[in-house]
């Protein structure tokens, strides 16, 4: 019990520290923090499905795109409303539309397992990306612009930094609650052996659909913020295969074993990319590639796994 209170206290302190950080940082560093929170949020949502059930989606950028375009189109309907209302309205649109579409495709697509599910999600993302690029409602190849919703007197990057931080805290809390619930245990049973779980009476289909819809909807929510921060979106910028891959890479680099994995992975990968490699732009992809290969071969359970192993070793000595 004392341990749990310590952890809670630490979390509150950490969030408080992160919240005050923008007052001391340069705009560039605030933007780095913002990128970390966004990619950590995406990774946690992807992990919500993959980490619990071992259903590895290769197309979660679909939900980023849906959330982004839902937010952009929703804002067109209320051009005169107060910025705070517009913000809530567009984030709500991202959450509901992405969650809704996830619910529609969940049943057929979750019948597929293993590689087939992985590829099918890739196909979903590709189809949606091409459709958005093809139909004029979505601005075609020119895309859509979003208004600046930051209140007067607040720096834009700090504003989105705080929103992204809050959303990250929310999705982590959701993942944590699930991991302690009946749903979480059921999903873990699906990961170990889906057929056995079904025979033991776990409502596998319902649980998988719930995890999928939560994962997709929450990504849509963060996707809306992603779009608002960009200020201008096209099919290529939000239905990006590399966004899907980043969620996977960040989760695996950090470690699939715990909720901290995706967050640490996102912090390390985004931090390294934005801070260390900023001067090595030409070789940025290659160095990222080397990092990925190295982590898979050296730390197959991710950085969290590596740390746990080290600690177990030193405790055993």
């Amino acid at each position: 019990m004392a341990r749990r209170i310590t952890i809670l206290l630490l979390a509150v302190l950490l969030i408080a520290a992160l919240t005050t950080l923008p007052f001391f940082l340069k705009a560039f560093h605030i933007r780095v923090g913002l990128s970390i929170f966004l990619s950590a949020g995406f990774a946690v949502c992807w992990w919500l499905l993959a980490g619990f059930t071992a259903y590895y989606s290769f197309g979660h950028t679909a939900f980023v795109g849906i959330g982004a375009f839902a937010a952009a189109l929703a804002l067109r309907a209320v051009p005169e409303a107060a910025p705070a209302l517009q913000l809530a309205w567009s984030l709500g649109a991202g959450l509901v539309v992405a969650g809704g579409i996830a619910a529609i495709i969940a049943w057929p697509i979750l019948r597929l397992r293993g590689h087939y599910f992985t590829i099918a999600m890739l196909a979903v993302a590709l189809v949606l990306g091409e459709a958005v690029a093809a139909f004029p409602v979505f601005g075609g190849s020119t895309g859509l612009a979003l208004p600046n919703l930051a209140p007067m007197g607040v720096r834009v990057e700090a504003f989105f930094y705080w929103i992204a931080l809050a959303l990250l805290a929310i999705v982590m809390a959701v993942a944590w609650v699930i991991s302690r619930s009946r749903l979480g245990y059921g999903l873990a049973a699906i990961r170990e052996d889906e057929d056995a779980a079904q025979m033991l009476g776990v409502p596998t289909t319902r649980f998988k659909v719930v995890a999928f819809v939560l994962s997709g909807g929450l990504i849509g929510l963060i996707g809306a913020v992603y779009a608002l921060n960009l200020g201008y979106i096209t099919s290529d910028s939000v239905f990006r295969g590399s966004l899907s891959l980043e969620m996977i890479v960040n989760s695996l680099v950090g470690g699939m074993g715990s909720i901290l994995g995706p967050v640490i992975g996102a912090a390390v990968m985004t931090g390294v990319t934005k801070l260390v490699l900023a001067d090595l732009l030409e070789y940025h992809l290659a160095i990222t590639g080397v990092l990925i290969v190295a982590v898979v071969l050296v730390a197959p359970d991710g950085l969290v796994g590596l740390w746990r192993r080290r600690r177990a070793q030193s405790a055993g000595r």
Partner: protein
Amino acid sequence: MTALVQTLVNGLLYGGILSIAAVGFSLIFGVMSVINLTHGIFVIGGAYGALVAWSVLGIDPLLSIPPLMLVAFALGWACQRLVIQPAVERGNPVAALLVTFGFALIAVNLLTVTFSSSVRSISPSYSFINLRLGDISIDLVRLVAFGCGLALIAILGSFLRFSRWGRVIRATALSELGARLCGVDARAVYAMTFAVASAFAAASGVLIGMMLPFTPADEVTWTVYAFIVVTLGGVGSLGGAMLGGLLLGLVSTLTQTYLGAVYTNMVMFLILLFTLLVRPNGILGSAFKASR
């Protein structure tokens, strides 16, 4: 009517290229159950290899195919032994996938630094010649590439069907433990499979380089097309890759002509999705695994 026939001819010629460009991916997926994201790198690498041979050494692209296949074979072997096999042995289902992704990032970066990201093309002396057959015109380069593609598929098919290595590869794909108990060194088989697949990917890249302009970033496209062809036709079988490639070529050309170019990819991806939902093992099923 003529327009339709012309579209169908173009579609078949394009489909033949899609087929040969997918066989390597299909082989690795079928034998090792690894989704190989370096596939497109070997394809585009073949195109750049042919570009260098043609523009620097003056070698006809078709003649550069055998030496480039040898180089790709060696690179594929090394890549599998040094990096991918260790990842496969980690036991994590996505470890191998991630490693191939990391490798593709490194390779595409090196290609971009070496050749820049601008669009390149190879046009040997016989480019831009059109054969006429009544009202139908056929691009000579495409016809040549199509013929070479079929010949390469036939060679790979004979290798798998009749050679000792081919037999061992098929057996390992059907039952790894069964093959090992016969005295097969499974790691050597996987390295061989990866090397052969890489060689044929590079060969297809030469043919693609003769027909279409290319950039380093195109590697993603060819990996995804290989995905679709294999999913459509069925994993691990050359017949499946042929069927999937030809179908996809026809669909793509027909969509382009009658619906508009913006819808081409969308229709192709929709077909991929639909196939997965209705018949996940492809039209011909998996060549190696029992049908479900």
